[in-house]
């Protein structure tokens, strides 16, 4: 028998209903990003100077909340993990692309989603960043298929989860990640206080 989740949304409410549902989910995403302060490049960049670890806190809280709910409902057989999209792993493009992305993040101060929120609230640096993103996507699409097509498939492992890699039940992996995240939260709170007191001394 099929599990309830994920819903077969297009069949349930039709293609227009599906579009409305996705816009609503995107709305929630954009709203939270703005409320978390991610429309401000200074707040995002402060992450890399240890003054303000909001990026880390928001991101990891979101990951563990969604992860625990997904694997809990899968364990209860309400959700089917096999029908959930798990980004296929391509080790080398992910690693190199991540480094380039990280460099762009500290130079430009945003990522694509936060830049969109920033531009939506009339921040010109967000708008310029967004223009850059489109330029980078364009450059990649034009250059890479010709030059580096072979590289894009390097280290391809397909749909590959941490649970498969470690050879344990996903529940234990999820639990482990929650423990690590909580430990990191304690650490970053300490780091933030340390940086704040150092600033006062100066």
């Amino acid at each position: 028998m099929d599990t309830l989740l994920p819903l077969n949304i297009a069949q349930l409410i039709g293609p227009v209903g599906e579009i409305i549902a996705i816009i609503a989910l995107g709305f929630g995403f954009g709203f939270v990003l703005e409320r978390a302060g991610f429309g401000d490049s200074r707040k995002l960049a402060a992450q890399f100077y240890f003054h303000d670890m909001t990026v880390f806190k928001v991101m990891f809280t979101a990951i563990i909340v969604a992860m625990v709910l997904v694997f809990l409902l899968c364990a209860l057989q309400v959700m089917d993990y096999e029908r959930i999209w798990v980004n296929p792993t391509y080790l080398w493009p992910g690693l190199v692309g991540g480094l380039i992305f990280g460099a762009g993040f500290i130079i430009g101060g945003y990522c694509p989603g936060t830049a969109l929120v920033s531009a939506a609230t009339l921040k010109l640096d967000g708008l310029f960043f967004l223009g850059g993103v489109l330029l980078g996507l364009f450059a990649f699409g034009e250059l890479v298929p010709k030059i580096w097509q072979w590289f894009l498939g390097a280290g391809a492992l397909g749909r590959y989860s941490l649970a498969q890699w470690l050879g344990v039940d996903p529940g234990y992996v999820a639990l482990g990640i929650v423990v690590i995240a909580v430990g990191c939260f304690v650490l970053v709170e300490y780091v933030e206080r340390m940086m704040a007191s150092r600033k006062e001394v100066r």
Partner: protein
Amino acid sequence: MARQAKAERQPARYWDPYLAGAILGLVLFATFAVTGHGLGASGGMARLIAAAEGQLAPDHVQRNPELATAVGGAGHPLDHWLVWMLVGVFIGGLVSGLLAGRFRLTTFHGPQITPRSRWALALIGGTLVGFGARMARGCTSGQALSGGAVLSVGSFVFMLSVFAGGYLLAYLFRRVWN
């Protein structure tokens, strides 16, 4: 760190990071539950670019496998969930900014640089981010956040790599932000 707000109109405070993260996690979970996939931002932008190229140079797009897949599929190339999600993110950010009193024309920049150099840096950084996101098949939303929550190995590699790239160059660019 004084957040310099104009005295006449104080914007609303940002949410507590853990609260914001928990709500973001619920939105992400709801997206998985309703659609079977996570959130995304750069993918929709890639489709915008590919669709624009398709309008201007259709033959060129058909000859390029990377672009052909981006506009491929039935119907209009922009009729795709990644593009609809962008519409939602834009409206969500706009509404939140309006309600919070943060909808204001300005440029965020470090105290030691001018708005003009900030724009140049934003453009350069954005270009690298767009390039890297396409190479890594996703950004902080579609790859790190969404793939991380469902335990994709590649998503964790990408996430660590992004933080490594940022921290490695942070010292070099300290005058831009501090």
